[in-house]
């Protein structure tokens, strides 16, 4: 399995994502520089966290126009798996690969914490290693993680089981406490929390983020079942 990790100017979680693939999954990781359109034959793409292009204009807004994002859009349309974490989630909404938008946290301050999440859909290629409605704990670190969308879009997301992760408690003002969603086909996931920062259980950490990567690996080895519903 070969996973591509996108690097924009201002990305800062690409090494954590690399650890998740190389050290945790023991699989091959390649960096995809934003100016290159070649996806180097990867089977999955991770858009890591950070502040791509300084978060200028809006978080994730400029990254949409990079050559690598054009290729990723095509890759996603083909049903191949794409995960956007934190700033990567923002980039996916700006690129219209996922609906809605992420705006400033209601409390206005940067949120750096560990939060409980409920796995709302454990049927996706990114979450099937979890138990239905399992509660997991993941770190969050964002200033713009407040998910908004038209009420109609929210209704659709809920009806199609596209809400994959939900905050157990409101942490940033997100509608319906949405923390992570997938597209209708189920092959594109965007989430604000950082699963790649919580892979190995220790005294301080639960290791709960491993499920996302375990799910992806199994899904790819089984020929990727993309089911959102």
């Amino acid at each position, binding site marked *: 399995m070969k996973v591509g990790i996108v690097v924009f100017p201002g990305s800062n979680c690409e090494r954590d994502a690399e650890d998740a693939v190389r050290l945790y999954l023991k699989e091959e990781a390649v960096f995809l520089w934003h100016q290159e359109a070649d996806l180097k034959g990867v089977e999955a793409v991770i858009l890591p966290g950070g502040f791509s292009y300084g978060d200028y204009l809006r978080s994730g807004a400029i990254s949409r*126009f990079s050559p690598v994002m054009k290729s990723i859009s095509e890759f996603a349309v083909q049903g191949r798996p794409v995960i956007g974490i934190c700033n990567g989630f923002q980039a996916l909404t700006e690129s219209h690969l996922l609906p809605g*938008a992420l705006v400033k946290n209601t409390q206005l301050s940067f949120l750096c914490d560990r939060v409980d999440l409920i796995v709302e859909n454990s049927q996706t290629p990114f979450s099937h290693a979890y138990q239905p409605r399992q509660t997991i704990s993941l770190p969050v670190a964002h200033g713009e993680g407040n998910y908004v*969308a038209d009420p109609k879009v929210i209704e659709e997301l809920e009806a199609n089981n596209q809400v994959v992760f939900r905050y157990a408690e409101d942490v940033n003002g997100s509608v319906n406490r949405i923390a992570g969603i997938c597209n209708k086909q189920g092959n594109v996931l965007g989430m604000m929390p950082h699963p790649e920062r919580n892979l190995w259980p220790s005294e301080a950490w639960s290791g709960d983020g491993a499920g996302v990567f375990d799910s992806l690996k199994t899904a790819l080895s089984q020929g990727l079942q993309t089911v959102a519903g």
Partner: protein
Amino acid sequence: MLMTPTASNQILAEGKTKVLRPGEQPEEVRVTFKDAATAFNGEKFQEIPGKGTLNARISAILFELLNQQGIPTCFVGKGASENELIYRNLAMIPLEVVIRNFAYGSVVKRFKFEEGMAFKKPLIEFFYKSDDAGDPQLTDEMIDELSILPAEANLDAIKLLAFQVNEVFLNYFKAINVRCADFKLEVGLDKSGNLMLGDELSPDNFRFRDADTGQVMDKDAFRFDLADLTESYQELLRRLEGHPGVPDTSGLSNAYMASIRVQSRKNILNPESKTILNALHTMGYASVQELRAGKEFSLKLTASSLIEAEKQIKTIGEDILSNPVIEDYSYILRLA
């Protein structure tokens, strides 16, 4: 000959120079151009046989030109008779939008410009279309006071449309050696609230001069008894019909200025605005009741025309500078 039902001959509206009747399609009207020449708000009046046909033919050519350039107009096509055109039915705005490239007429009287001088940039003026009031000039506040603009319309969009029309005309008339000194436009809204050019595009509403001789080719011929109106209009029509075609302006590089404003949509919670408002209240400015934070982008750009520049600005505003999920954008575009 087909019998026309009487209902369709019913007069919907009649002005000094045109009569409106229902068209065959529900959203269309038939416009008959009368042979009447009027000036000085109807004080001077004369029947001039053939004038209606000349005005209809000239208007058709100029409307067609604008339609081809992508400027929205009321013009649908020619009618059954030579002095009749088919228009889309518009809710007209009682504004006379005047564009001036060269100084003639009232602007010379009011501001003592030298007659015939070229303005640095095209000027725009607004007058109230009201025969009773004598078509007085308007200010922004007077436009508000008289509730002249419907909710869907705004003055910036009207100005932009008028300047776009002017740009097309300047290029077009240059090719037939005609100086397009000034003209009056009227605009309205179609059923869906889209701003469109209405009225007529005849020498009644323009000041045309031969670019070399200064010979009058418009209603000034009648207004000031300078020349024979029919001959002047015929000469213009002759040149329009012999026009080499729409000049290729795609290679032009004109400078424009745009200002794009992006604001979070009203029903979207904007914590930034809220916090600034709270801070103002804390500092004792309890009087501030509403505050919306936004962004403004000032752009200098080049394009082959104002029409092309607007297309660019719309794409930039919609696709890049704003996120339509959470924000609205508006723009002002003008000559640099």
